[in-house]
């Protein structure tokens, strides 16, 4: 298990999976700051259905790791109230597909209480949700509708793609004075381990990360799609001599437009890879922004390599829905060869 239940002060680095890093981030911040409380369905004794809160209940007790009734508007609404009272609530939505009952509380209130009150009140709160497909889950368990939240000013939206970032971004989110929707790519919850410092550190919510430098094309992605994108990049380098730059956005709102545009100006070509349906997805925002800021550098249409405009299918064919390395490669090649 993660370091959450027994962090080792002598070992500054340990190998963690992404979900363990989330748990460790919670543990680290709860240890430091009494006002942080975790609430949600099955987060307590059960340690969360993905074990993202494993060990926290034992460590911090039932007043800080709280099993709630099954009601998402109740969870997010009461978390807003907790935040208003001076606490730092971390509300877990069991899956992103079950966040919608809380949509009104998120967009009408969490996002707007600061501006409504002319700065008098604020809602420092993190809403965590596992998201995305690829694990052969039942219907509604594979949503990736980050674009909904990016379109609501006042919310921040974050999605890590590595264990290191998961912990650092989560700690930064917990310390952020604004409400953060923290989307965890559950496809890679346990896909690999990475060295993660045991203590506290922040990965700022302002910066995208260039995961791979390249000169021929900039590919923007985040969360679970970062891996197949990097694989596609390697394949393309090997097989076609195409030099792909991969930018992991990490924070989806506000977007790090500088990094996005800078990379594009270098390469002149771009693709966006995401799981969500194409129409109205974040890919549209990114390509629209790029052509606004750097049209004169643009040498090819910006390609969106995304989920199709259909509901996420049942799992037998979900691998055809999600952008696979093969689709990513093809899309990149098409753009490079334009």
């Amino acid at each position, binding site marked *: 298990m993660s370091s959450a239940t027994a962090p080792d002060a002598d070992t500054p680095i340990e190998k963690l999976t992404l979900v363990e890093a989330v748990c460790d981030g919670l543990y680290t911040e709860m240890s430091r700051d009494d006002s942080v*409380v975790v609430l949600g369905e099955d987060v307590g004794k059960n340690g969360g259905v993905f074990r993202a809160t494993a060990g926290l209940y034992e460590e911090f007790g039932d*007043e800080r790791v709280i099993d*709630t*009734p099954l*009601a998402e*508007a*109740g969870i*997010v*609404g*009461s*978390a*807003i*109230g*907790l*935040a*208003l*009272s*001076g*606490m730092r*609530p971390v509300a877990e939505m069991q899956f992103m597909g079950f966040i919608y*009952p809380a949509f*009104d*509380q998120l967009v*009408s*209130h969490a996002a707007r*209480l*600061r*501006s*409504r*009150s*002319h*700065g*008098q*009140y*604020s809602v420092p709160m993190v809403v965590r949700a596992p998201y995305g497909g690829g694990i052969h889950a039942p219907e509604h368990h594979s949503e990736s509708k980050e674009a909904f939240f990016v379109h609501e*000013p*006042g919310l*921040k939206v974050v999605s890590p793609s590595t264990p290191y970032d998961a912990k650092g971004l989560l700690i930064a989110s917990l310390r*952020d*004075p*604004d409400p953060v929707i923290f989307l965890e790519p559950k496809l890679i919850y346990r896909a690999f381990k990475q060295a993660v410092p045991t203590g506290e550190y922040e990965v700022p919510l302002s910066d995208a990360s260039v995961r791979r430098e390249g000169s021929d094309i900039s590919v923007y992605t985040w969360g679970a799609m970062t891996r197949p994108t990097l694989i596609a990049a390697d394949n393309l380098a090997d097989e076609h001599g195409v030099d792909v730059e991969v930018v992991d956005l990490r924070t989806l709102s*506000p*977007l790090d*437009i*500088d990094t996005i545009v800078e990379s594009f100006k270098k390469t002149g070509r771009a693709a966006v890879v995401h799981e969500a349906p194409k129409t109205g997805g974040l890919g549209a925002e990114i390509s629209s922004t790029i052509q606004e800021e750097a049209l004169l550098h643009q040498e090819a249409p910006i390609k969106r390599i995304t989920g199709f405009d259909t509901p996420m299918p049942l799992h037998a064919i979900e691998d055809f829905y999600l952008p696979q390395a093969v689709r990513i490669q093809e899309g990149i090649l098409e753009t490079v060869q334009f």
Partner: protein
Amino acid sequence: MSAQKELDQQDTSSPVTIAEQPVQVLDADGNVCPNATLPDLSDETLVSMYEDIKLARRFDERAISLQRQGRIATYAPMTGQEGAQVATSYALDEQDWLFPTYREHAAKYVHGVQLASLLKPLRGIRDGYAVPDGVNVMPEYIPIATQVPQAMGMAWGHKLQGKADHAVLCHLGDGATSEGDFHEGLNFAGVFDVPAVFVCNNNQWAISVPRERQTASETIAQKAQSYGIEGVRVDGLDPLAMYQVTNEALNKAKAPAAGERRPTLIEAVLYRFGAHTTADDPSAYRDEDEANEWKAKDPVDRFGKFLYKQGLLDERLEAEMDARIEATISDAIEAAEQAESDPNQLFEYVYDEMPDRLREQRAELDALREKYGDGAFDGVLE
């Protein structure tokens, strides 16, 4: 839970009571009802409560007239509900929090919000919602019932922080009881036993929908049973009954006796004497006879008669009161009408720190205003 225990009817640590007859202290003529005890309030407080109720009534008249003159936007009148609003806020301690809807102007005022601040949002100026530190009042909630889980959460936060003497009072309407947020918030309140008091101002109407079409439940108070909390029905046109019931509920919220649950759902049985808002015409859907019947229990008259009978009020005092009220409201209107909103406020307080893109958008707007003048932005339709 063990099989036998569950099958034998779940045990309840806290027997829940629903008063069927609404609590009443004064009759319609301002006499103390038989068996009723007066709440423990000083003469001064009683008189000041009356003055605030009268102020609320007058504020309503002035606001409606301001709206007619186009000096403020749509206004939700409180006539008929002022007694309940003022009395519930009198029951609050300073550290207690108030979650109001768009109708609880007087409740906010009594708990510390300036009258001018109430008027500013009606002029489209949001700094009216930025109450001073120490005034524990949330901006009004417009999306129906959304305040309920939030009020619950704040009360929960107080309890978790060992400040259970900071109670939260949350207003809502009869229509609000149909929303999922009402249900989720009250269920949480019951489960986590938080220091919160929910006041349902059952004014018999949700715009055009009468209470009996809102729910087939006999009373609203009885819905408390679903959450294992106490439900109380009270005559909402009787300010003293409202004070008493709210005060008891707040005391219980802060310091429950053994076996008592902290939260309470109060059903204030009252009536919306006027229109839903200044944009509404109740004659389209309800009979004025019905309103008249309720008006016979008018909280201002009733409480006034009581004070006269108690020798706490006379015509001279009342005239002084009226003059003070008039001046206070006029000053507030003047202050509110002088307030302005800077278009740059658009970009402020969206986040703690302004993102780059917002900074650019602000610059873009600034440049346009500079170039064309603010007049160029008048009315999208031109």
